[in-house]
Each structure stands twice: as structure tokens, then as C-alpha cells.
């Protein structure tokens, strides 16, 4: 294949190892095979779910159990963590090298050839063009004719060069760069994808629960987030009628009022020193955006137990000795009550259960079935008496000797927001690449590189024209240029050649 008469470089140089590697990557055929392989393995990877979506402790066992022999093969071949595997990246890398080298190998000769075009071409060359014609004129007439043609061409956006009695009119040369601009876009997209999956801290896709009032570290970032309040707004009666909804409790908005902090240092006690950087009411499609990090409102839990309130009662007299409230996430070791009463928390099980030996054990870090052993000291029990407090369980029998009793009084709840954290630093490169890709497509497809050569020889003007596509349009344009210049060429003398 030739580009503007110049032999493609890869075909003109003897074969040393360097050149063989170069030629391998320069080959369009090789490029297409690489693309096909990437296409096929990418499709393969979607057959079974990828490992990192599943959060498994033993992925191999999972795939074997769920998908049998196929699952085992699939896992063993590495398809379950394919898109970040070294060989998938190697394929992308090869495609990247192929695109870069193939482009360099073609764009440089093309650039040289187009830059060094001669205005005067020989007669045979012009007559070979698909669109060509000639007419006779005189030496006196020719400067006048060329001037008129030039004016008409310039009016149509042609860039005209004259060399004695020859003309070269050229238009939209830049459209020839379209494919290479296109390739540049692809290079950026692939580079972005490779960097995103390879550089730690470029890509993040995590989920976390944040309780109202809680400040939590945003995994993988220097930020901390506080959930000020989580609310659910329902549509009002009037709004429901307006949208003719049957659903009486249609949700209008899930919202987390969030504050984002950045860790600016460490305090002497080892706690992070936080500086508020942003606050934002996050709703479903309106994330908190700070630099490259996005926090999305993704889920919620309503009314989780937070504080449990008890009153101490004297069982004999029925007298109330006051209330105390226990933070289920961070209880105080003891609570002082009026009348000389003290409640010490002897033990606490956030989620009470019993093991095989019927011993009480805790089975969760969330207080969803809290149980306390209180040691209640008071004037009538100076040594203190042990008292279990388990929700919904009357324990009066085991504590029948006790004077005091901790009565469950009240429960304070909080809401919890589920927040999705996403960060993708490669995305800006990928989007820029995609935009450049589109520009390249437009350049290559929408515009055409048109060239018209004219030369005067022995009483004849010979004209030839070339375009990379859109021959009919070029022919029409030439007809109108001729007409405007006062030259009448019969239609049949400017036929589209059958080449």
C-alpha cells in the first residue's frame, strides 16, 4: 500500500529484530487480531460474575459449588478476576502499542507527502485522475483564466497555490488527520483504563453505613464523613393527586445531610485532626462531590437502636429511683442515680445469644439484641445485686431475692445512611479520549480532502481532481467553479471516470 506515492516505511527497511517488532505492531492485520482477541475474552469475562463483586472468603469453593466443573475451569483460568489480570492488561497494552506504532508509521509519511506537494504535475498524472478534463486556450488568455478560476476556488474555501502556469487548489486537508486523531482518542481511553486499574488510589468503589451523628473514615481516601441527619420525604396528598399515583406512601426524596472532613494531621492523643471541607445534602442523583471523590446516597436503615433508657424501681415499695440512658454503642461503666443509687454495668452483650454450653455470648457488633448485667448498689443493697436486663424477657424469677429492678423504659433510635463511595481518577482521561475520538470521526467522515490540479501546456489547459471520498460532490463543485469562471465545459467532458 502506498500513501501519496510514498512507500510505507515498514515495507522499505530491511529486517533487523527491532524492525521486525516494529513491523509486527505496525500491521493492521495484527491490530485487528488483537482487537478480536480482546473482544472475545472480554465477552468471556461476563459469563460468570467477577470475584470482586461478590466479596468472598473462598472464591474457588464458591465457583465450584455454584457452577460446577465449568466454574472451576473458569476460576482456574483466571476469568473471575480477569479485567485486572496481568494478561488482560498485556492485551490492552499490545493494542496500545499497535495503535501507536501503526499510526506513527502511516502519519509521518503522509504528513511529509502532503507538506511537500508540487504544484505542477505532469500531464499523464492529471489525465489519470478519476475526474479530469482539458480545454484549449491561448497564451494570452491563460493568466486571465487562471485568475478567474483561482477566485472561484478561493470563494469555495480552497487553498490555492500557483507555480508559473500551474495551479494546485486544496481543501480540508485536515480531514486526512481524522483517523489519527481518532487513534489518539483510543490511546487515551486505553491508557486511562490501564492506569485506573493499576495505580493504587485511582479507582474506588465501596459502600459503607454511617449512622446519624457518626463520623466515619471514607475508606481509601483522606476524608471522613459525618451523617448529620437522614430523612425520607413522602409526596403530599396534593402532589399524589397531581401525578395520579395510587401509592399512598410514594417516596419523594431520600436525603442524607452530610459533612465531609479532611484529615489534616493527627492530634496528640492519636485521633485524626479533622477540618470540615464541605457539606451537602446528598440525594439519590445528587452526590456529594469533592475533588475526585463522589459520595452517593445509596441505601438506608430506619430506626436502629441507639440509646436504651431504664428506670430503677424498688420492688417492695414500688418507688421509682430515677432513670438512666445507656448508649448501646458506647456505654458508660457506671451510672449515678439519686438517693445514693449506683448502677455498674457488669457485662454487656450487644447481640445476646447462647453457645452449646448455654453460656451467654455476643454474636454481633450491632446492638440488635442487647442484654446487660447490671450491678445495682443502693441503701437497701450496699453490696450490690446482679440484675440481668434482656429485652422482652421477664427475669423476675431469677432475681426474686433482689430489692431493685431495672425496668426497661424507652428506646431512642437513629437512622443510618448507606453511602456509596466512588472515585475514578482515570475517568477524566477516558472522557477526554472519547471526545477526541469523536472529533477524529467527524474530521474523517464529515470533511473530504479535495484537490484540483491545473496546468497549461502547448495551448491546452489540463485539469485533474482528486478526493478521498464524495466524488459526485467534487464534480459538482468543479462544474460550478468553471461556470463562475466563464468556462463552459460540456457535461460529458467532465465525467466521473470509471477507475
Amino acid at each position, binding site marked *: 500500500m502506498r500513501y501519496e506515492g510514498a512507500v510505507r*516505511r515498514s515495507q522499505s*527497511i530491511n529486517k*533487523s529484530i*527491532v*524492525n521486525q*517488532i*516494529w513491523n509486527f505492531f505496525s500491521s493492521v492485520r495484527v491490530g485487528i487480531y488483537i482487537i478480536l482477541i480482546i473482544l472475545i475474552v472480554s465477552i468471556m469475562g461476563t459469563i460468570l460474575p467477577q470475584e*470482586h463483586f461478590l*466479596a468472598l*472468603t473462598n472464591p474457588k469453593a464458591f465457583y465450584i459449588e455454584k457452577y460446577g466443573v465449568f466454574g472451576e475451569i473458569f476460576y482456574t483460568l483466571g476469568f473471575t*478476576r480477569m479485567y*485486572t*489480570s*496481568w494478561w488482560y*492488561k*498485556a492485551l490492552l*497494552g*499490545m493494542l*496500545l*502499542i499497535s495503535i*501507536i*506504532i501503526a499510526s*506513527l508509521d502511516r502519519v509521518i509519511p503522509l504528513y511529509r507527502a502532503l507538506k511537500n506537494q508540487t504544484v505542477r504535475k505532469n500531464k499523464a498524472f492529471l489525465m489519470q485522475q478519476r475526474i479530469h478534463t482539458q480545454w484549449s486556450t491561448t497564451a494570452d488568455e491563460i493568466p486571465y483564466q487562471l485568475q478567474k478560476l483561482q477566485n472561484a476556488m478561493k470563494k469555495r474555501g480552497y487553498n490555492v497555490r500557483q507555480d508559473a502556469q500551474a495551479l494546485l487548489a486544496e481543501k480540508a486537508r485536515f480531514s486526512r488527520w481524522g483517523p489519527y486523531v481518532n487513534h489518539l482518542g483510543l490511546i487515551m481511553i486505553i491508557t486511562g483504563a*490501564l*492506569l485506573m*486499574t*493499576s*495505580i*493504587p488510589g485511582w479507582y474506588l468503589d465501596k459502600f459503607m453505613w454511617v449512622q446519624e451523628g457518626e*463520623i*466515619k*473514615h471514607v*475508606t*481509601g481516601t483522606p476524608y471522613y464523613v459525618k451523617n448529620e441527619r437522614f430523612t425520607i420525604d413522602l409526596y403530599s396528598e396534593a402532589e399524589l393527586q397531581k401525578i395520579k399515583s395510587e401509592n399512598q406512601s410514594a417516596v419523594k426524596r431520600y436525603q442524607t445531610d452530610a459533612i465531609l472532613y479532611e484529615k489534616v494531621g*493527627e492530634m496528640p*492523643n*492519636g485521633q*485524626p485532626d479533622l477540618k470540615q471541607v464541605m457539606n451537602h445534602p446528598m440525594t439519590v442523583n445528587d452526590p456529594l462531590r469533592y475533588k475526585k471523590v463522589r459520595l452517593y446516597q445509596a441505601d438506608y436503615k430506619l430506626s436502629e437502636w441507639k440509646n436504651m433508657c431504664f428506670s430503677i424501681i424498688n420492688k417492695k415499695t414500688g418507688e421509682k429511683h430515677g432513670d438512666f440512658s445507656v448508649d448501646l*454503642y*458506647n*456505654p458508660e*461503666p457506671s451510672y449515678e442515680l439519686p438517693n445514693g443509687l449506683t448502677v455498674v*454495668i*457488669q*457485662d*454487656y*452483650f*450487644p*447481640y445476646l445469644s447462647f453457645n452449646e454450653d448455654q453460656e451467654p*455470648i*455476643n*454474636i*454481633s*457488633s450491632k446492638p440488635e439484641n442487647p442484654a446487660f448485667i447490671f450491678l445495682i448498689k443502693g441503701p437497701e443493697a450496699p453490696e450490690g445485686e446482679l440484675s440481668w436486663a434482656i429485652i422482652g424477657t421477664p427475669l423476675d424469677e431469677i432475681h426474686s431475692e433482689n430489692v431493685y429492678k431495672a425496668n426497661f423504659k424507652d428506646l431512642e433510635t437513629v437512622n443510618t445512611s448507606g453511602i456509596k463511595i466512588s472515585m475514578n481518577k482515570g475517568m477524566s482521561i477516558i472522557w477526554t479520549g472519547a471526545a477526541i475520538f469523536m472529533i477524529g470521526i467527524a474530521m474523517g467522515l464529515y470533511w473530504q480532502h479535495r484537490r484540483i490540479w491545473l496546468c497549461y501546456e502547448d495551448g491546452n489547459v489540463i485539469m485533474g481532481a482528486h478526493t478521498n471520498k464524495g466524488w459526485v460532490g467534487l464534480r459538482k463543485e468543479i462544474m460550478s467553479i468553471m461556470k463562475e469562471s466563464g468556462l463552459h465545459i460540456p457535461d460529458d467532458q467532465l465525467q466521473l471516470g470509471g477507475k
Partner: protein
Amino acid sequence: MRSSRTTIRVIILLILFTAVGYTISRTLFYNDYNAINPGDLAPDFTLTTLDGLKLKLSDTKGKGVILNFWGTYCPPCVTEMPLIEEKYQKYKDQGLTVVAVNIAENKITVDRFAHRYGLTFPIVLDSKRETIDPYGIGPMPATLFIRPDGTIIPIEMQGKQTDRPIFEGQLTDKVLEDHIRKILP
């Protein structure tokens, strides 16, 4: 002219292969799922012990450290605690220490648990789950073994050294003995 063209090609190919090769090597030698790797310095942290004292991990330098991540709600964590205590008693005079990081529990629950099981090694409370990220802790229990110089040793499985820095799952007597031997000063 030709030799200079070859030189340019060599340079371009070198740049491209280095860039792509570097990216791939990151994937090969740095497992995505591990925040840390064997041989790395153990990420430092300062947390509060059950006695209310600050414990800074890097202050344990000079001792072999068993760094254990656990919770009272995790049955295998509970099961392995007496074993860790046994090894602590056996080797503490030879320069072994244990740092047991409790993940996100309240002090009373942990304190009473330690009391019931007679645990004497330092237990620190990570109420904000700050250590999860730097260590890449997934399922618990998770245990790391740290040399006196502060570096993490690779986990050995069935007599073979792996590239994993964290032992996941319940510790056995053999696992503990095998790894303790490598971290004693």
C-alpha cells in the same frame, strides 16, 4: 539515515514497552486485594488499650509481634484467643508480644470478655475501624506476624511460603508455632 531511523524506533519501542510493562508488573507483583505485602513495614497506628493507655504499634519494635484482628462476635476469633494467650505466656520472655485489635466494639463488652477468658496480652480498641483499610482486613479473624524490625513476614501454608501477608481464619497450634519461630528476636 537508516541507522538513525532504527535508533528512533528502538527508543519508541523501549518507551512503550517500559510503560506497558510497568503497568502490568504492578498487577503481577502487587495483589489488588492486598493493601500490604510481605516485607512491608507494618502500617503504624495508635489505639487505646483496655487499660486506657495509648499503644503505638511502632513502639513494639525490637519484639516479634502477633497482630490479631478480632471481635467477640466472631466465633473462630473467640476460639483462638486461649491459644494466643498460651503462646504469649510461653514466648513473652523471649521477646514475643501480641497486639489484638478489636474491631468496632464497646469497651465494656471487650473488657469483660478478656476478663472471662483470662487474656493478659494487650488488646486495643479500634472503634472507628481505622486499621481495616491500611491492612486490607477482610474476614476475621486475621493475623499478621511482624518481625522485630517492624516488617511483615509472608504467611506459610502447608510448609510452603505464600505471597500473602495475612493469615485468615482460625489459628492452629502449628500455624502459631511455625510463624512465631520466624519473628522471635
